[in-house]
């Protein structure tokens, strides 16, 4: 049972890393970024190229930095220049980006499945509750906790964090107060995209690399964002852990309904609290 709970936390942690990027971007730009899964995939491939050559940690670093740059470009070229248009235009553009990125990766790396190596330092298992457990999975838990803690501290204790929280509540009013929301957004979208790159590399050794790998995990991340409350950071964290557990325990105790459970939960939450767990913001 301890192992099963741990497995749920691992998957929940991965979902959190992906979902929190969506939340960051949604908070500032009020746009659901459909390309987020493709950015996750691109980050994974960038890291893979270095990891396959034996430089796993360098791959992680390069992927995060490269995706941060991609995020800044995305903010300037797409979100900023389209902010006067209806949001649906931006959403459609992000969907187009998803298709473009998939094609770019297919042309560059090919369609064949690739397998990501586990870094040497984290290879092997430890015994937990009398059963071997991969060290790498513990690493995923550590990374997601560090990101969650770091983000929470940044948002709560820094001036910029305060601005981000303010802009996530109401970007218009925040800009009237003299805060440059565009500059803020550059940082936040860059950070959110960098987190997509980070989760892409961290998820790599568990998943099969393919140009469509983002699609399979993005749906779960969307569910996390909706259940947690759009634009809520803490909500996303708890929702991700919950969905992780539901995935795991569902597969064991209710296998016939396992794929439905996250959706049923989402429907239930939306009926009970249409703004999600922590969605108190208007």
């Amino acid at each position, binding site marked *: 049972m301890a*192992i*099963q709970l741990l*497995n749920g936390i*691992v*998957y929940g942690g991965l979902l959190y890393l992906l979902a929190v990027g969506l939340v960051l971007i949604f908070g500032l730009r009020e746009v659901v970024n459909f390309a987020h899964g493709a950015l996750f995939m691109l980050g994974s491939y960038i890291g893979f190229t270095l990891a396959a050559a034996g430089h796993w940690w360098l791959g992680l670093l390069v992927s995060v930095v490269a995706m941060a740059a991609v995020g800044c470009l995305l903010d300037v070229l797409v979100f900023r220049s389209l902010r006067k248009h209806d949001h649906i235009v931006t959403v459609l553009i992000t969907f187009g980006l*998803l*298709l473009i990125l998939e094609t770019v990766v297919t042309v560059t790396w090919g*369609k*064949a*499945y*690739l*397998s990501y190596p*586990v870094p040497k330092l984290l290879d092997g*298992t430890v015994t937990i509750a009398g*059963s*071997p*457990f*991969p060290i*790498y*999975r513990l690493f995923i838990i550590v990374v997601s906790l560090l990101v969650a803690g770091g983000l929470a501290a940044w948002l709560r204790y820094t001036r910029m964090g305060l601005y981000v929280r303010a802009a996530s509540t109401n970007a218009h009013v925040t800009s009237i107060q003299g805060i440059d929301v565009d500059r803020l957004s550059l940082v936040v979208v860059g950070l959110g995209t960098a987190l997509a790159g980070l989760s892409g590399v961290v998820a790599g*050794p*568990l*998943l*099969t690399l*393919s140009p*469509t*790998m983002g*699609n*399979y*995990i993005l749906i*779960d991340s969307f569910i996390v964002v909706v259940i947690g409350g759009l634009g809520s950071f803490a909500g996303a964290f708890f929702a991700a852990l919950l969905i992780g557990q539901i*995935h*795991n*325990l569902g*597969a*064991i105790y209710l*296998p016939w309904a*396992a*794929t439905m459970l996250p959706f049923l939960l989402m429907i239930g939450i939306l009926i009970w609290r249409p703004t999600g767990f922590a969605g108190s913001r208007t």
Partner: protein
Amino acid sequence: MFKAVMMTGVALGAMLSVSGAALAADPLKIGVATDMSGTYASLGEEVMRATRFAIDEANAAGGVDGHKVEFKSYDTEAKPDVARRQVEKLVMEGYPVITGMIASGEGLAIAPLMQRWGSLYISVVNKADELTGANCAPRVFRVNTQSAMDAATVKPWLKERKEKKWAVVAIDIAWGRGSAELFSKAVKETGGNMVAELFPPANTNDFAPYIEQIKKAGAEGVWVVLAGRDAVNFAQQSKQFGLTDAITVAGVSFTTDGTVKTLGDSAKGVFGIINYSSTLDTPENKAFVKAWTDKYKVPPTNFEGEAYLGYQVLFQAVKDAKSVKTDDIVKALPGKTYDTIMGKLVLRAEDRQLLKPNYFGIVEAVNGELRPVVKTTVAAADVAPEVVCKTK
């Protein structure tokens, strides 16, 4: 995702060299509906490669009995509902000879419609027995190995094994359910028992809950019925959990030429059914492997071999029929012996299943490179499935 990828006439260039007289005949138009973006996208890619190879080869030789060969392909995402739509589109656009689908559910979804649409379907990957068994339909043919033939191949192996407590992990679609049932039956008949039967959905990201259950059930061996992306995910994660090294792992479509290349060491020592191998020792196969390797620099995979075999059968039937009309091809196909890369094989008239030998092997290093290696060969007659089909 929502792409309708379309490719036409890659072979057009090759055809310019063909004489004017040959071009005057009606072309043979093949509709390839296969997975290009779903869980079996890599299998779809293998089918497409075999399609281009076979059609280029035929056209370079002046076409099939003077008919040039054309094809068009659409993405089915390995989903039965999408497959039905795409196949209808192919037929309406004038490509009535259908092939290429990966998931058994796709084949089963379109099989009953072939009669109404005046088209025909040749399965090259669908394994569910029903396609040529209980749900068999006129104008539906299968050249690849069905699950019952795989089960007949695994039984002699099970008899020799010490493991008595088995688990099965099978994808929750028609093929997985059917194959798991046949495997359980084989285990019971050879004196073993099943301790866990797990059915993860397609595109599962995290197999940890399934791996935990196999361990907890105390299984000594696990039979894996997963392919494509699911197979790679499972193999990787069970290696990380130490499962692969602790118990015997075997499967069908699990450690194929394609997945072993991806997995490397994680696939070492895994047993499995082999439906086709580029190492088969027939003159036809050697010639095929040489031509293929000259073109693609790597030997053909199991799925590429079986897909190519499908085109060999189809082209010979078109020659016999002396026509590219589907009615004539349908009449010409069954009950004949075909010259193929796996030797002379009979397409059984009763259920339209091609009877072929099957193989069992293990993943090991050959010249420093890991790949599935054939250890046992079972003759076509020994794996021939019972005839269940009632329609002619």
